[in-house]
C-alpha cells in the first residue's frame, strides 16, 4: 500500500530580466493506492498529473509532504535506500516509440533488467530466457516472433506491450501508466487497456492510471478511485463510477461535458457545463483556482480557497457544490 500525503512540487524557472518565476505543479496532494487497486488521475495537460506519476515512481523529487510505502516513510530513508522500494513501482511510458532503445533487440531490452533480477535471486541464464518468454506471452505477444526483432519492426500496440513486459521483469507491485494508449491506433487501444486490466486481476498489481480520457479510466479502474486534478490541486475524488455519474465540482463537470457524444448510440447529458474561458496559467492564485473559468462563480469564490471536504466517500473542493447530469445517456432504440 502506498500513501502520499501533502505532496507539493514547484518548478522554478531560471531568472531572466523579469526575475525568476515559480510554477507550482502540485499544491498538496493526498492519495492512497491499495494493493491490487486502481487509482486514476485525470486533468488537462499542465495540471500536474504526469509530475505526480513520476514522483510516485521515484523519478522526480518533491518539495514537501511524504510518500509512505508499506509503512515506511520515504523521508526517513537516504536516497539510495529508497531504491528497493521504488523498484516495486514501475512507470509505463506514454510513447512506446521512444521508450525502447532502437539499437537493441527486444531480447536485449528484456535481458538487462532480467539479469539484475537473476543476480538478486541467484538464478541463471536459463531462467532468464524462460522468464522473457513467459512475460511476452503474458502480455499477449508471440515470444518467438518478437524476441529477435528491433522496435522499428513492431507495431505501436506491440511495442507498448513490450514496454509493459519490461516493466514486469522486476515483479512490480504497482504499474504507473501515463497516457499509455494515446499514441496507439484506435482499434488496438482497447487491447492494451484490457491487458492492464487483466494484469491487475492475474498478478494482483495495482495500477495508477494517468489520463485525460475519463472513459478509459472507467474501463480500467471502474472499481477504483478517481482523482480530478486542476492546476496541481485535487478538486474532486471518490469511487470512479460515483464521480462520473454524480460529479459535484464544476471542473469535473466541464471535463465530462467535453467528451464527445456518440450520436446515434447515446444522447448528450442534459446539464452540460462549459467553462467560460480557456486554461490560463497566469490566472490568479487567490481564491478558488477554477473561479475565473467557472460559469457558477460568486464573489466568495474569488476570495476564498475551498478546502477538500469529504462525505466519507466522495470529496470535493468547491464552495457551491451541486450535482449535475452531464454525461451522455444511452439512446433508446
Amino acid at each position: 500500500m502506498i500513501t502520499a500525503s501533502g505532496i507539493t512540487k514547484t518548478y522554478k524557472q531560471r531568472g531572466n530580466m523579469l526575475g525568476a518565476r515559480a510554477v507550482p505543479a502540485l499544491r498538496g496532494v493526498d492519495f492512497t493506492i491499495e494493493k491490487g487497486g486502481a487509482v486514476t488521475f485525470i486533468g488537462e495537460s499542465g495540471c500536474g498529473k504526469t509530475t505526480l506519476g513520476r514522483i510516485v515512481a521515484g523519478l522526480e523529487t518533491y518539495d514537501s509532504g511524504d510518500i509512505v510505502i508499506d509503512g515506511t516513510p520515504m523521508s526517513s530513508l537516504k536516497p539510495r535506500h529508497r531504491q528497493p522500494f521504488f523498484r516495486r513501482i514501475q512507470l509505463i511510458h506514454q510513447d512506446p516509440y521512444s521508450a525502447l532503445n532502437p539499437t537493441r533487440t527486444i531480447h536485449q531490452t528484456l535481458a538487462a533488467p532480467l539479469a539484475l533480477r537473476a543476480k538478486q535471486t541467484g538464478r541463471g541464464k536459463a531462467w532468464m530466457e524462460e522468464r522473457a518468454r513467459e512475460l511476452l506471452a503474458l502480455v499477449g505477444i508471440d515470444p518467438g516472433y518478437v524476441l529477435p526483432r528491433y522496435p522499428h519492426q513492431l507495431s505501436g500496440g506491440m511495442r507498448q506491450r513490450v514496454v509493459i513486459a519490461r516493466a514486469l521483469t522486476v515483479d512490480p507491485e504497482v504499474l504507473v501508466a501515463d497516457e499509455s494508449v494515446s499514441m496507439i491506433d484506435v482499434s488496438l487501444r482497447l487491447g492494451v487497456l484490457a491487458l492492464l486490466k487483466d494484469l491487475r486481476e492475474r498478478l494482483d498489481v495495482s495500477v495508477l492510471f494517468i489520463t485525460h480520457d475519463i472513459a478509459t479510466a472507467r474501463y480500467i479502474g471502474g472499481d477504483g478511485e478517481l482523482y480530478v486534478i486542476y492546476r496541481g490541486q485535487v478538486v474532486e475524488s471518490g469511487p470512479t463510477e460515483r464521480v462520473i455519474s454524480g460529479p459535484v465540482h464544476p471542473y469535473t463537470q466541464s471535463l465530462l461535458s467535453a467528451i464527445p457524444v456518440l450520436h446515434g448510440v447515446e444522447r448528450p447529458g442534459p446539464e452540460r457545463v462549459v467553462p467560460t474561458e480557456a486554461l490560463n496559467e497566469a490566472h490568479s492564485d487567490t481564491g478558488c483556482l477554477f473561479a475565473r473559468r467557472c460559469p457558477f462563480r460568486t464573489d466568495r469564490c474569488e476570495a476564498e480557497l475551498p478546502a477538500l471536504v469529504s462525505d466519507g466517500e466522495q470529496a470535493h473542493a468547491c464552495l457551491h457544490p451541486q450535482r449535475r447530469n452531464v454525461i451522455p445517456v444511452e439512446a433508446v432504440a
Partner: protein
Amino acid sequence: MTRTSAPGVRVKDLTVVYKTPAGELPALGGVSLSLAPGTITGIVGESGSGKSTLALSLLNAVQPPGRIKEGSVEIDGLGNVVELTGEELRRARGRQVGYVFQAAQNSLNPLKTVGKQLLDLGRSHDFDDLPALLKDARALLGRMGLDGGRVLDSYQHELSGGMRQRVGIMFALVLNAHLVVLDEPTTALDMITQAAILKIVRDVHHERGLTTLIITHDMGVAAEVTDSLAVMYGGRVVEHGPTTEVLGSPRHPYTKGLIRAIPRLSGDIDEARALPGRPPTLGTIPKQGCVFRERCPMRIAVCDTVDPEPVTRDARTVACHAVGRPATPIVPKEYV
C-alpha cells in the same frame, strides 16, 4: 469578395500509389465518395487507412513518391482537380479549398507574426485590399473567442495549442474558401479545448455556408460534429452514411468492431471489446480479396479472392460480401 455557395465534391475511383523499393503500392484503392454541398462529412480511419492521402487529393497535393494513378476529383466551380496544374492549382488552393493541416499547431512560421504570414497569403493570391483581409481575419478570430489584434501581432510561441489551432482555421477560411478540409483538427488538444474547437468548426460551418470535410482517427470527434460519416480501412471506404445511422446501426464488421472498442461513459463498460489483429500498413494490404478479412468475424470464402464492391442501399454504402445482401437481416440492437 464574392459570395459563392457551398460546393459539392465527387471523388470517383481514385487510386493513389506510393513508389517504394517493393514497387508501387496503393494507398487508396479506387475510392469513390461524394460530399453533399453544405454538409460536414467525417472520415474516420486508423493510421495507414489512406484518410490523409484522400484529403490531400482534394488539393491535388499528394507529394512524391506518391502520385494519383487514376480517378477523378470533381469540385463544383473548379472542375476535375486532378487535371489542374501549376498556377491554376496554386490559386485554387486557399481560394476555393481551405486546408487545416494535421498538427496545425506546429505549421506556423516561427519567425513571422501571424499578421505577416496573413499578408504573405494575401499577396500570393493577388489581394489588392490587404487592410480588408486583416479586418476579415480579426473578425474571424474574434468570432472564435480570440483577441484578433493581439493574435495577429503574436509569434506562434506566444500562442497556446488551442489558439494556434484556431489560427489555422482562420487561415483556411480567410480567403473565403467554401470547401474546408480539416486534417486531425483536435489531435494533441485537451478535452475541453477539443470541445471548444469542435463547436467553432460547427458554428463557422453553418454561418458561412461551407462544405466541410473532417479527417480524424477519433470516432467521438466525428460523431460530435458530422452529418455524414465515411469509415476507411486499408485504402478503401468500407462504410458511408448519415452519422447517427452509421453509429447507431453499423453494417460493416469493421465499423461495428471499432464502435464496440470505444470505452464510453454511458452503458455497461464491460461490453467494450477489443478488435483482434492490427491494421494493415502500405506493404501488407492484401493484393486481392477484402482488406479487412484477416480481422473479420463474418469472413466467408469469397472474401479471400474478391474485393467487395461498395453497395448503396437507403443512403448507406457498405463494401462487404457478408452484409451486401438484402436477405441478411441486420440486427443493430446489440450496439444500441
